[in-house]
């Protein structure tokens, strides 16, 4: 007599499923950074205020991701998306602490300060991955995509963060920037812009977008703005990892341009995927 679909009782997701998805996403996104030596050193070495800012930036990013794209259940009230963000952060911290303990990089019961520092620096990719997995990879996950301009720009920032965070701590960015003159830096900028535009509008990936209001408008409104966002994200991450310490503005800018290339690919990909 009862059609289960019309039952008033809301469906509930098991906590285990929900947390498990978060763990999966955290591992997927954070393992490259969990296994990068420069990050371990940076976690212990970089000035505390930069690490604190990074944690705050992580929280803001994850909260906004959960708010705009959901991360588990279908609730849309403020406490729902705040809870989603909290779950992502908690599981991200657990994954980071567990993995690094298993790798023998920290022993939390001996050096809890070192462990907390490492968790703080690894939380960014892990928490973004956790919230991504809960919103996108789950069966019955939620939230029809709204694609207002604000959301698109935010999405590009999130994609840029994920890609840039994996590369920013490495020595390679510094090396590439050191040998690249102004000509190569300029070429990199052109290439990044072309890649971004091509990814989203040209090469026919699943999720390709139609050019609204003509190619020039799309280029100016989304591609160049997206590139600016990617460049800003790159600069922020490089500064956080101390790559701007003791270098002049020109070198710093070249580093940011180098990192902005993968960041802009990430920004473009995020618009296709999410």
């Amino acid at each position, binding site marked *: 007599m009862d059609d289960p679909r019309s039952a*008033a009782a809301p469906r509930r997701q098991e906590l285990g499923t929900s947390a498990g998805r978060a763990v999966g996403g955290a591992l997927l996104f954070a393992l490259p950074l969990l296994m990068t030596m420069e990050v371990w050193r940076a976690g212990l*070495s970089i000035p505390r205020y930069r690490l*604190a800012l990074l*944690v705050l930036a992580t929280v803001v990013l994850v909260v906004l991701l959960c708010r705009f794209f959901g991360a588990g259940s279908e609730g849309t009230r403020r406490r729902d998306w705040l809870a*989603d963000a*909290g779950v992502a*952060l908690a599981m991200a*911290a657990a994954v980071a602490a567990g993995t690094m303990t298993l790798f023998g990089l920290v022993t939390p019961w001996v050096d809890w300060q070192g462990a907390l520092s490492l968790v*703080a620096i690894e939380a960014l990719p892990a928490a973004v991955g956790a919230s991504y997995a809960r919103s996108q990879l789950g069966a*019955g996950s939620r939230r029809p995509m709204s694609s207002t301009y604000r959301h698109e720009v935010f999405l590009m920032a999130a994609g840029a963060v994920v890609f840039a965070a994996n590369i920013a701590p490495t020595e390679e960015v510094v090396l590439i920037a050191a040998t690249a003159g102004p000509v190569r830096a300029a070429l990199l900028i052109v290439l990044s812009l072309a890649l971004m535009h091509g990814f989203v509008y040209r090469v026919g990936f699943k999720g390709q977008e139609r050019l609204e209001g003509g190619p020039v408008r799309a280029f100016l409104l989304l591609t160049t703005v997206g590139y600016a966002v990617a460049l800003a994200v790159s600069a922020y991450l490089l500064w956080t990892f101390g790559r701007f310490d003791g270098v002049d503005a020109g070198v710093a800018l070249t580093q940011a341009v180098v990192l902005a290339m993968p960041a802009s690919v990430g920004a473009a990909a995020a618009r296709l995927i999410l």
Partner: protein
Amino acid sequence: MDGTDDTGTGAEPPMRTTSGEYLLGVVGGVLVVAVLAFLLYDALAARQGGPRLSVEVTAVTPAPEGFSVGYELRNEGGETAEQVEVSAELTRAGSPVEQAGATADYVAPGSRRQGALLFTEDPRSGELQVTVSGYVLP
């Protein structure tokens, strides 16, 4: 009760956030506050000034060829020291007998690194001096 899960028809009642998820969410929030509080404490109370390095001999044991002098390097300052040189000199009756050295990749504030210095002569007879001779700032 979740028998009709995953059909994705959209006709089902919405999936709600469970109390478990709220609880875990609160745990996440508490964790963030705890990490920020720790960083604040670390910045204002624990990490002051540049690197302050000290080295201490922990054990002298026989090695396959000679002797191994275990040491522990500590950084009680506020900044990481890189390429930390530990050097040791063994003197007997005022005249130098043997020298040894080691380099630690980096020593973060509040952390300890261990290593060993190798001698062919027995460092237990004579006077052994182990010092930090230099480092590079990041």
